[in-house]
Structures are given as C-alpha cells and as structure tokens.
C-alpha cells in the first residue's frame, strides 16, 4: 500500500477550487477529560440539556533497540504534531496533498478503534522524533491483514523500517497470537522487497484488488519463527 491510498476515496476526488478554500487549524483540541456539566457555562446552551459519559481503550506500546512503537490513537501520542504540523517531516511515499494526509492519518487512527490494532507510530527513542508508521493494516476490501510500512524522510536509510516491522511481527506472533500476515509489495519496489526478505517473508502470488489498483503487486507472507511452511491456503500459489 502506498501512503496516498490509505484514504482512497479522498484521493480520487476532483480538484478543489483553491481560491475558495482556506485551511483551518484555528480550533484547537480540548481536554475532553475535563468536560462535565460544571464546565457548561453558557445558560442558553444549558437549556438543551444533555449529559456525557466517557469510554476508554488500552493500546499496546512496543519497544525495540532504537525505536518505540505507539498507537497514534493512544491518548499520550500527539498525532497532529507528529504527522500534520507544518514542520512535520513528510512521508516518503505520500501524495503532495494536505487534505489527503490529514484524512489518511484520521483513517489510520479510526482503524485502531474498529479493529483494536493498526499502524503504529514509529518513534526514534533517542530523539523522540516520529519517523514513520508500521503495523497491521486491514481495511474493508483487503484480502487479508497486511504488515505495512511508511517511513518519513528523517527515518530513511537507517534500517528503521525493518527494525519496526520485526518488532511488530514479534508482537503479532507472540502476544497477539497471529499465525500469519502478508505484505503487498509492488514488484518494482526493490527496497521493500529487500526489507520483506530481510525480515523473513516469502513471496507468493501476484494480487489485485480494487483499492490497490497498481499492477504487479506481490503477496509476501510472514510466519512465526520456526514455522517453516506457509499457511495451507497459501501453498502452491507461488507464481
């Protein structure tokens, strides 16, 4: 998956009339945990009458030698600052479209809520800087969950993608109990193919599905260490 296909519908949209659009960063996020009736100060709106309840969710955090992996949906992670602020580094494979980036990050966060897993933000431990997104990605229409990786420019060329991907695989196979996950890699993407091989994935069939329209996408399968055969469904499908 390339990054600009995360929110495919947005990316297919016709061009806007830029003269009629402005960006709006003016409305800041609020501290939702502070909310309550005691903060409902305005009498007019109080007449509407409502009450509020909260729900919480736990997110895994993973640590490798040089990296910390945290869900971008985790309340302690500031996804706006890491990915969307004007000085945030750009993703290597992202489209030059701020709407698309915002919609993609929102969709990645929502994916965690819908599945309980998703792409982790990859944080460089010695700087605290976010350098990418790596993790299982399984939107509706995907044939099966994909281990997917997207590096930002400062994370390039340091082996971070393979370190983070290996960390996620260890978590999936050891703690989360998964027995298989694939990566969908374009045949011409030598860097990702090398990465897939480095972390032990094996090539299977070429695939095509609607939201991944590029030709020559190959399935690369990851299985737990010591598991020498691919899953039964995958056997015999190597082209």
């Amino acid at each position, binding site marked *: 998956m390339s990054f600009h296909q995360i929110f495919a519908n947005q990316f297919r949209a016709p061009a806007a009339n830029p003269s009629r659009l402005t960006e709006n960063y003016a409305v800041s996020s609020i501290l939702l945990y502070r909310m309550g009736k005691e903060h409902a100060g305005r009498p007019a709106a109080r007449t509407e009458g409502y009450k509020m309840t909260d729900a919480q969710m736990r997110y895994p955090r993973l640590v490798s030698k040089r990296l910390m992996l945290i869900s971008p949906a985790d309340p302690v992670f500031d996804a706006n600052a890491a990915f969307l602020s004007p000085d945030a580094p750009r993703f290597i494979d992202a489209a030059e479209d701020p*709407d698309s980036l915002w919609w993609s990050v929102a969709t990645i*966060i929502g994916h965690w809520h819908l599945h309980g897993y998703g792409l982790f933000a990859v944080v460089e431990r010695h700087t605290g800087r976010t350098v990418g997104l790596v993790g299982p990605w399984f939107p509706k229409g995907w044939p099966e969950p994909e281990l997917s990786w997207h590096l930002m420019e400062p994370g390039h060329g340091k082996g971070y993608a393979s370190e983070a991907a290996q960390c996620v695989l260890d978590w999936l196979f050891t703690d989360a109990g998964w027995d298989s996950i694939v990566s969908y890699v374009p045949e011409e993407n030598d860097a990702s193919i090398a990465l897939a091989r480095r972390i032990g994935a094996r090539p299977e069939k070429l695939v095509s599905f609607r939201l991944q329209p590029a030709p020559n996408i190959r399935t690369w399968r990851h299985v737990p260490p010591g598991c020498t055969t691919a899953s039964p469904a995958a056997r015999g499908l190597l082209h």
Partner: protein
Amino acid sequence: MTAAIPTLETDRLILRAPALADFEALCAFYASERAAFVGGQMDAEDVWRQLALEIGHWRLRGYGRWAVEERSSGQIAGIIGLWNPHGMPEPEIGWDLFSGFGGKGYATEAASAARAYAYDVLGWTTVVSLVDPDNHASAAVAKRMGASLEGTVTRKRFGELQVWRHLGPDDLAAGGMEAYA
C-alpha cells in the same frame, strides 16, 4: 487529550461514538440517493474508511460527529455533529439523517445538541452548516435552528454549497428557546 468520545443525550436521541456496529446502516445510507447530498454514493470499502475517518476526526480535532441513536428503537438514525476535516473552510454542524428517520425533527434535535456542545464545552463563538442547494430538507433544518444563509462555498466532491451561519452563543443566551422557535 483522552481518546474518549462523549455521549450526549437529548429527549428522544442518544449521540454516541460511531462504532463498527454502525457499519451496515452507514452502507445503506451511502448506497441510497440521500448520499447525493453528501459527496456521492460509496461502496462498502469506502464506507469502512469513512467510518474510521469519523472516529479519527475526534482524535485529531477533539470533536467530531456522533452516531445518533433513536432512544425508542435503539436504531441509528444518522451521523450528526461537528465536522472539520482538513480542507473545510471552517467547522460545521453536519447532519446526515438516514432513510426512515426524516420528518420527526431528529436532525434539529441532534444538531441543536451538537451546537450546544460546541458553545458550552468547546467554547466556540460561531459555527456554520454547509448545505447542498438542492437539499431542501437540510436547509429547512438550518432555518428551524435559526441559522441565516450568508453565501456559498465550493468544496471537493461536493460542488457549490450554501453556507448557513448558526445563531451564536450570545444570540441563544439572549433569545433562549424562542430564538429558533
């Protein structure tokens, strides 16, 4: 900031976090002609991402749209709330009411709760709604809430939209309930 999405309760409706349980109802909405007014029809794959986006919007902005449940039936009647993905001219109150739930004042009831939330909790001083010029039912909701038509804006996927400016918090404080009677 927490990951919590608040629940609001009105006389007849419960506004709660969108969830996977809403997926089928959203698919039916986005497959229906009603979707023509909200950017066009979407298939299940795009609706799933839209649902993820609705939830992610809450984390990125600190507010968003709620799944609106009809108290009497427990069914989801629509997606209504505060909407401001990147590319919006300014935050809006949006109401996507599902088939079978029109004509009951539900959009007005839920949108009024969302407006109150924007002013009470978020401290906003103004908010608009963007309405497709052919969506007369939606314009009627804006009018019923006391909003005034102030112009048009053109957006991706949506074309030209009417900009309805809602009564501000001070208007509501001064006029009380009769401000939108």
